[in-house]
């Protein structure tokens, strides 16, 4: 198993009497894309801000690539951050601003790097535009560009696609996918479908507490259950249950057949093929099949 790039131990942050984050511990493996999930006020942004060294924890500890983020200069060159609510300084043209950020990071050719990352977020035309002339979506992508400067090993992205139109959001997701493997990425988002698609693992927070931290496969039960959307016909539940490796089968609302299986004993593709074949033999028509439950369902169940 790879080494943890990020480790949070018993992390807490109190604002007066309010416990924004309470005794949270989890690890992010190197090269993983990790999701921070939770409803509003769950403590995602607070946890995120502590990992970036913006907020001091009330208790607990954080290690980013073995370094304490509150040690002066500890994160330099190691971390790129897209903060959610930080506004780009308006008095700078975008190109000059990114070049300045590159110089602060000590990059040898800051201007060339600024051009490269701006190309990567598909905004080279904004080079001479002032930050206050950018639309919300453009500003978000410029902020994303600065997080990618110098290809830092750890990248924190707080709500990277919030407020973006679907096409641009898809291009941002594609950038995040490209980072996978070479960078450790932490993504905080409300878009659970996006996180399910992008992340290897996630932490689910609620009211400041960690309610679950696991791989996406474990969270969604990908290795333990699948669902079939039935269109027409009578589902032979008893026959489905009798299939080897099947633990349970039940019909959920909206004609969804949920089958729980022993992931250790049987491969998902094998059990799905057998069950779907049985349904076809019994003239049951179906629309789609998906592994596990939707992340959204899991989150709603936990929070």
């Amino acid at each position, binding site marked *: 198993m790879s080494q943890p790039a990020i480790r949070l131990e018993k992390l807490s942050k109190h604002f007066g009497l309010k416990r924004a984050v309470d005794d949270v511990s989890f690890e992010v493996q190197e090269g993983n894309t990790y999701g921070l999930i939770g409803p509003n006020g769950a403590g995602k942004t607070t946890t995120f*801000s502590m990992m*970036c*060294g*913006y*907020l*001091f924890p009330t208790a607990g500890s954080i290690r980013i690539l073995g370094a304490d983020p509150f040690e*002066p*200069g500890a*994160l*330099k*060159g*190691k*971390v*790129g*951050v897209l*903060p959610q*609510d*930080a*506004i*780009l*300084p308006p*008095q*700078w043209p975008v190109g*000059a601003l990114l070049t*300045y*950020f590159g*110089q*602060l*990071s*000590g*990059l*040898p050719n800051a201007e060339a790097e600024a051009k490269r990352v701006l190309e990567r977020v598909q905004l080279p035309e904004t080079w001479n535009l002032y930050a206050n002339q950018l639309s919300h979506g453009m500003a978000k992508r410029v*902020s994303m560009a*600065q997080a990618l400067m*110098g290809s830092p090993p750890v990248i924190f992205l707080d709500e990277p696609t919030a407020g973006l139109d679907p096409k641009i959001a898809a291009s941002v997701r594609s950038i995040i996918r490209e980072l996978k493997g070479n960078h450790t990425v932490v993504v905080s988002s409300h878009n659970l479908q996006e996180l399910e698609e992008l992340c290897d693992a996630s932490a689910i927070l609620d009211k400041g507490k960690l309610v679950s931290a696991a791989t996406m496969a474990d969270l969604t039960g990908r290795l333990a259950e699948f669902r079939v959307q039935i269109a027409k016909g009578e589902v032979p539940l008893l026959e489905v249950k009798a299939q080897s490796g099947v633990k349970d089968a039940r019909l959920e609302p909206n004609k969804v057949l949920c089958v729980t299986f022993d992931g250790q004993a049987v491969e998902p593709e094998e059990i799905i093929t057998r069950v779907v074949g049985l349904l076809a033999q019994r003239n049951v028509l179906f629309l789609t099949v998906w592994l596990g439950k939707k992340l959204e369902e899991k989150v709603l169940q936990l929070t």
Partner: protein
Amino acid sequence: MQPRVTDLQEIGAVWRGETVRATRSGRVVVLLLLFMMFVGLSLTIVGFLSSQLSAKAEEQAKSAGVDLNDEKVKTQFNEGKKQFLSVVITDDEEMLDSLLALPVVLLFVFKLTLRFVPLLIALMGFDQMAGELGPKSIRFLVVRVKRTNLILGKFLSQVTIFAALLAVCTILMVVVARILNDDFAAKDVVIWTLRLLASSFVLAVAYLALTTLCSSIVKSGAVALVLNIMILFGIWALAFVGENFAFPGTVKADDGNLLALLRTESWAAYLQYFSVWHYGQDLLHPAPLRFAVAALVHLGFALVFLGLAQLALKKRDL
């Protein structure tokens, strides 16, 4: 690969970037115009009053049949000037002798400018940190630069911009004074330009650091500006109160001095030592030691203000 960057390189990068940003914004031009307008207005008012007084003195001399070019009369005039300055500026003999070479207009305009400088500095730099803290743009910076280096870089950028503004306005002041006073010899022009620049620059360093401190402890630029101005009035009030009381036990010992007798003895006299403004007087002193001590005190205050600013930013959530 992780780049190796020293603290000095970090400070230098912040300094360059912030100076470019400031010169790119219109604020520097507005501040320069404001500074020049203040100097211009002061020169006009003080110059007018001075010319009126000179005309009256010449008229009186003429009616009394006195030759103003007579050396004896010149000496008497200088004595009168010294007496006047001893009441309104300082009672230090050495300093009074030194100030005789300086046109009164220039001296008064310079003194007024010194009062204006801390306010100008507050206007210039009130949002240097607060402007990053409020909108949280500081979050883009602190993952790249140590918080302490960020403050130092920004402070040095403010020092650079202010030095440029100061140079322009001081030269303007001296040039106008030279035009108005034929007696202001070329050699004195050079010496006094340098002395005025040096003293106002050293004085400004402490106030620049104060502005950095105010801007580092609050998130709102407007609040930082108000706080800065309130502290300035506090500094001036401390100096005023302290300097207008006599130290306990000094009035009796000094009973020949009429001015000293007018003052009341009080421990409040010691308050002047807590005000950086109190030490500004000696920045024009001809004795190098007096100047050096005053300069060191100003730098000391600057270091204290910067240290507090560092502490505030280091310990705060961003």
